[in-house]
């Protein structure tokens, strides 16, 4: 697959490590979260057949973690963004 890196353009997916669903960014608030919240966060997945927001770590590249929106039935990628917004690039 080819992932269009927002900073580096098209890059081979073999340079990336797949980290799973982007929902993993929404870690429960340790102050308020219940045991169920933690269980659901850590263990339940939407696992959609269709567009899926997921995290790819560019280990063989610039070490950015990207939020990739990819259709799990066709592998078509419709959106890619940096998980951590960078400072001014230019």
């Amino acid at each position, binding site marked *: 697959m080819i992932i269009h890196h927002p*900073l580096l353009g098209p890059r081979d997916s*073999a*340079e990336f490590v797949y980290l799973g669903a982007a929902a993993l960014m929404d870690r429960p608030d340790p102050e308020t979260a219940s045991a169920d919240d933690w269980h659901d966060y850590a263990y339940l997945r939407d696992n959609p057949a269709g567009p899926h927001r997921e995290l790819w770590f560019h280990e063989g*590249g*610039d*070490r*950015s973690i990207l939020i990739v929106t990819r259709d799990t039935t066709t592998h078509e990628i419709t959106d890619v963004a940096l998980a951590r917004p*960078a*400072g001014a690039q230019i």
Partner: protein
Amino acid sequence: MHDLTPITALGGTSQRIDTVGDVCLTEMPDVALASVAARRGKEARCRAALKPLLNADAPPPGRTTANAPFESIWTGPDQWMLLADFTTHEDIAAHLKSHLADTASVTEQTDAWVCFDLTGPRITAVLELLCTIDLTWFETGDAIRTSIHHLGCFVICTETGQSVRILGPRASAGSLHHAITTAMASAL
């Protein structure tokens, strides 16, 4: 001055040079490296502080600068690798930190990497056996971090179609050297 004798990444006391046809692979031990990562919220100040060191703006993604005293490579968001002559800048990290102060995190990287220069008119035939870079558009000043035989490397175009610099993980210098020379024998 200390009295310890360094060895090169390939284990020699002098640089290793391999030639196949008109293409030459040269180990470059005298390269000092340091990583510069802008502190969160101080990206602009960091760039400003870099400018006099690079005699240029800090390079954008995928690009390099090649002016004295410090060459640079974009390595990540708000992050660059700076290069200098080891014989004059072995203290590169300390030197940069003194200029960049609290605008950046500076980390010595000199011996994290092995540096090879690959030169000659047919290097693209060699490179296309090593990495996924689209060499059609790989021009002077471009730099891409990619994988060569499972090794994460920086490939820097120093002269379009004529010369590249490859930075690879130092501990695997032997494997990287083997991969490149094998490709040279195969392609040339």
